[in-house]
């Protein structure tokens, strides 16, 4: 289990990065980022076959990932930096003027690892579908991964893409939903309920898996299982239960830390709960 121990340590460091980045500019989205840290860490450090050195926009013959819920940028930037896409110290420029680390991820500044702008929600599944089709046309056997918020599923375009992916048998795509049950204005069920989400995706023709996104052992196991299901004519989606704010006790169990930064005292409390394993940036 040394690999898993290692992943857990990296995840703890990534969480430190997230709260420090958001605190530094008093701006950003810690809640969802902390919730999805285990997943993105496992994806980039364990699951995906990708090349952080000499980033290639086309991503030919490597697995590629799209962050559709772009407000989890602090998480993504931390993991990209720590897998070697760019220098760690650049994390300190997050959300500042002239930075490549924009509030929401963009391609415009040429930050390695980013292949599309995201932030306006609901668009990433369509983009992932297009990229997956291109992989097939190029006889590229690698996979496309994507992450979406559960609140994001209220966007109609997601369901356009859901129908499209099933119709065109996009079976080299593994989408994941951050199923934390919370959005800016409150619990998803009280805003616009997603109803029976598993049944919805199944009825749209997708293969549905579920996992606890904060159990990194389970994440590795289920995503690897998803990989074995590719190539069978159906797109795959993982409904990933997470806890918003995971790892920082006062940020958990509430939607209030969706887009709020910790103050100095709160930062200190948070960092005391998150072990520094790889050295802060």
């Amino acid at each position, binding site marked *: 289990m040394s690999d898993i121990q290692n992943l857990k340590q990296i995840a703890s460091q990534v969480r430190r990065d997230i709260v420090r980045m958001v605190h530094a500019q008093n701006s950003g989205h810690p809640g969802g980022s902390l919730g999805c840290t285990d997943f993105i860490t496992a994806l980039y450090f364990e699951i995906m076959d990708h090349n952080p050195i000499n980033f290639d926009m086309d991503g030919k013959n490597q697995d590629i990932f799209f962050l559709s819920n772009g407000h989890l940028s602090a998480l993504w930037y931390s993991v990209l930096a720590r897998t070697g896409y760019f220098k760690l110290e650049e994390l300190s420029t997050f959300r500042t003027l002239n930075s490549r680390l924009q509030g929401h991820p963009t*391609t415009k500044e040429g930050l390695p690892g980013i292949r599309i702008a995201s932030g306006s929600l609901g*668009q990433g599944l369509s983009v992932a579908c297009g990229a997956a089709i291109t992989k097939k046309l190029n006889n590229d056997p690698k996979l496309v991964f994507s992450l979406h918020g559960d609140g994001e599923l209220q966007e109609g375009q997601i369901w356009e893409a859901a129908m499209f992916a099933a*119709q065109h048998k996009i079976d080299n795509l593994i989408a994941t939903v951050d199923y934390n049950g919370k959005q800016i204005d409150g619990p998803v069920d009280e805003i616009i309920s997603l109803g029976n989400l598993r049944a919805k995706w199944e009825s749209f023709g997708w293969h549905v898996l579920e996992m606890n996104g904060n159990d990194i052992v389970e994440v590795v196991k289920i995503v690897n299982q998803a990989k074995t299901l590719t190539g069978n004519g159906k797109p795959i989606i993982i409904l990933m239960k997470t806890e918003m704010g995971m790892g920082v006790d006062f940020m958990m169990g509430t939607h209030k830390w969706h887009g709020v930064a910790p103050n100095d005292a709160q930062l200190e409390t948070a960092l005391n709960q998150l072990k520094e394993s790889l050295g802060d940036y």
Partner: protein
Amino acid sequence: MKKFDYKDKKDTRSGFGAGLYELGKKNKNIVALCADLIGSLKMNQFVDEFPERFLQCGIAEANMIGTAAGLTIGGKIPFAGTFANFATGRVYDQIRQSVAYSGKNVKICASHAGLTLGEDGATHQIMEDIGLMKMLPGMVVINPCDYNQTKAATIAIADYVGPVYLRFGRPKVPNFTPEDQKFEIGKAILLNEGSDVTIFATGHLVWKAIEAAEILEQKGISCEIINIHTIKPLDAEAVLSSVSKTKAVVTAEEHMMNGGLGDSIAQLLSRKLPTPIEMVAVDDKFGESGKPEELLTKYGIDTDNIVSAVESVLQRK
């Protein structure tokens, strides 16, 4: 003035379809997408010959634009076709974020633009699309005037790397430009040299500008006619060089005055070379059902309106 002639009338959308098919034959990276309008966009030949490179998206334009953006990652060149209304206003944010801001090599191919789609009425007659698209940083906006030019433009934009909005229409119009023309993005075409006024026209209104110039010639007025097939980037050099000679301008387009070609020309001239200008365009109105020619007349963007605009701008010279 120079004599303009044509063998037949053809629809610009068929020029798009023919150009797309040519592209399909010579470039394996060309992928076409359509939102349930293959026949209307004249994409049948591409669909029949290259089914593996055609993606039927159904009536879901937002997903079509996002998918097109994704297709570019790995080197495909997507041509996404639907009616101009659904290719722009309906999916503005998808184009803005996933295509323009992301700098993706997507070709947005918009048919049935303007009033001349006719009987379907205002729900389908978008006249804001040029404005919407030219506002997006980095977006190239092209509005060719006839079948041959639309075919040439379709082929040319595949060699340009970056987002392009290609606008064309439904009605059959005089096909008068050369069949073998080379289309240069951003390069205005001087159709007729004149001395009294410059008429800058785009799309279907280019032929109307020629008709107007012929009428005006009878009245002793010499019109320079410039076909602005690329509204963005605007050929500033061509505009300024012509206007510095004629010192009077009329613009003509099948589009809203706000945000259209006239707007672009006026913006350039007001900064570089203030000049009297009249605009033949639709003035803050939605369209309605009718025959294309009836609509052009009713909404004030026909040959006679260009003639009047020239006469009135000359009085301000």
